[in-house]
């Protein structure tokens, strides 16, 4: 089955090269360095803009750092900038995002790991069908399912609350996570499962005492995938969370759309950087797991 391969190696293999200054390789390095500079440019521009003052921004060059350095715009972005009606800074959004992300990650991973385990080790009739529909469903545009889900949450009485966003993130995180867990559990040696069965362990006991302890890496991958995904979400936050629970991305967008009077580009860029900080930090500290997550989730061939 083409969906079954779990671990995809994205690490380099073979011996390290000895010569790197032959012309062909120089070309390769040149191209790679130039393109990566282009890729780094926006991050650099964000950084230097956020520590300039407004005069330097108006008169200066977007690509050169100013002579002036201050973190004032960072303080302002965090503490006092206006995000729509209120002027309490982006910190409100930060804590809202934390409140949304933590439970969503826990719930979605709990549901998905159990489902993946069921699908891999205890397949019931139509399990394959459910799984196929789940995977195909993850490609359907969110807009198609948005309004029915609004109705559903409204009927459940949780629309515009944290519960609604958590539910929605669980729903839309399920396909990729289930795929991840199912493939991982299917790749574990079946003898383990059989031995536990012979010893009389049941569904939950095998999961909790045999499978889960062996699956720390895949749980790590899932956490990273979900934290970055949920932190970066805008659509579900703006539709389901309700005014007081708007996540950081929504608050950030509000800074840009609701600025009255002078547009403070340095504060805006500081707020943008702050919003990107959590996923960036996770990415830089756990790059390998991040890559593994997207590769395992995407490359099923």
């Amino acid at each position, binding site marked *: 089955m*083409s969906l079954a391969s779990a671990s*995809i*190696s*994205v*690490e380099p293999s073979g011996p390290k*090269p000895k010569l790197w200054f032959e012309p062909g390789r120089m070309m*390769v390095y040149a191209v790679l360095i130039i393109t*990566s500079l282009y*890729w780094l440019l*926006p991050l650099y*521009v*964000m950084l230097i*803009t956020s520590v300039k003052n407004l005069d330097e921004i*108006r008169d200066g060059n*977007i*690509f050169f750092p100013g002579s002036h350095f201050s973190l004032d715009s960072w303080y302002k972005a965090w503490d006092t900038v206006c995000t729509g009606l209120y002027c309490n800074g982006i910190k409100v959004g930060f804590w809202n995002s934390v409140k949304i992300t933590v439970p969503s990650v826990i719930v979605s991973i709990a*549901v998905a790991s*159990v*489902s993946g385990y*069921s699908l891999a080790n*205890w*397949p*019931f009739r139509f*399990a394959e069908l*459910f799984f196929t*529909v789940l995977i*195909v469903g993850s*490609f*359907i545009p969110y*807009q*198609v*399912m*948005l*309004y*029915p*889900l609004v*109705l*559903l949450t409204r009927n459940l009485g949780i629309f515009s609350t944290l519960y609604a966003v958590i539910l929605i993130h669980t*729903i839309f995180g399920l396909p990729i996570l289930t795929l991840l867990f199912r493939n991982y559990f299917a790749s574990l040696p079946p003898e383990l499962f*059989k031995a536990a*069965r012979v010893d009389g362990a*049941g*569904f939950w006991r095998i999961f909790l005492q045999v499978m889960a302890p062996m699956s720390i890496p895949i749980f790590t991958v899932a956490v990273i995938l979900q934290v970055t995904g949920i*932190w*970066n979400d*805008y*659509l579900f936050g703006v539709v389901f969370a309700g005014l007081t629970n708007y996540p950081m*991305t929504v608050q*950030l*967008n509000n800074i*840009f759309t609701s600025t009255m009077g002078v547009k403070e580009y340095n504060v805006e860029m500081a707020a*943008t950087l702050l*919003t990107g900080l959590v996923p*960036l930090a996770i990415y830089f500290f756990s*790059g390998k797991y991040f*890559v593994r997550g*997207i*590769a395992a989730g995407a*490359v099923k*061939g």
Partner: protein
Amino acid sequence: MSVLALNEPTRVDDDSRMFKELLTGLFFVLAGLGYYFDIPFSFSGVSGTIIGLAVGTLLVLILDIPFKKRLAKSVLTLAALVLIAWVYVAPLLLGGVAPQAVIDQVFKLGTLAIVFVALTGLAWNAPYRNLMSKIASLPMMLIVLVGFVGSTIWTMAFSLTDARFFPVWHFVGYNQYTFLMTNERWIKSLQNMTLYAVCFVSISFVLGFLIAVMMDQKIRAEGVFRTIYLYPFALSFIVTGHVWAWIMNPAYGLEHSIRQMGWTSFNFDWLTNINYSIYAVVIAGLWQGTGLVMALMLAGLRGVDDEVWKAAKIDGISKWRTYLQIILPMMRPVLITTLVIVASGAVRVFDLVLSLTQGGPGISSQVPAMYVLEKVFNGNLAGGLAASTIMLGMTSIVLVPWVYVEFIRGKQTR
């Protein structure tokens, strides 16, 4: 599949099994009768029907009712066909609107057909096989049936009404679609989406493949390069959009800075130019998404057997020809999966446009997702739902062939 062998049906003794089956059957009969005669506390109306269908299907599936019996299967297929034919085809043929009462009857009969199938199926089932697994998978099943399948069907059904603020079932056939096709903003949105998708997919594929090939040359510091190319993918579209909006800012951004450096005739006003604003979105999108394509292609390249390279070397095939004519065709599964991921992402592009251009200037960079959201929550519900159904249609252009290759044909040849 040795794992499967262990999951023998766990036999419950016959008496209790019979009792449980009778109970389930009774539930079905009561639900069916109550539903048909509109008894309170049973499902009624179209939303109810869809929820009813979802719950009914769920029960059928959990109880493990085999659909092998030809009678049950044909009844179900017939019911589904009649349902589809009546709702979707009849208005076309008759030119008008199907009478409300008839639609209700069709929906009800359809549901009853499922109940019938369930009842007949009960005679041959094995409901308690892997029961705990089914119970544990209940949330997943519910999400699939209600969240994905149910919601999609609901949206498609209500796109055939003229609902405005509230989802009231008043059937008007294809009116919303014919209106959309004459709506300037919607047409522009569709064109923009197609442009974005084509540009984004083609450029990111070419760039991603080239970078992946260069990364595959056993270079030093590969991890550093990969980290750099992929970091934008960890950022949200909102952040991406605002950064690029700042870089392309007409007053203080790229244009201003390059002119200041001496090239005074330099022109770059894509963000505010109605002919180019959608390409500005492409630039930002490429910055965010090319790393992903690169990473997937690199994984694909690494998946190719070393023997292939040795064989090509012995045959004296040059490196570039090997990549283009041998490796690339071998990577087809990876390429197809990447295409589906990237293209379906392009169809639902929303946050990026919202933060970069807000759909402007004018309507020049509007995309379908923005149209849907605006209509659905601002008193043109059915119009928005019809628009989102068209988005679904656009996605299926890549999705349907992929599903066929990946799931249906793959299974037959296995």
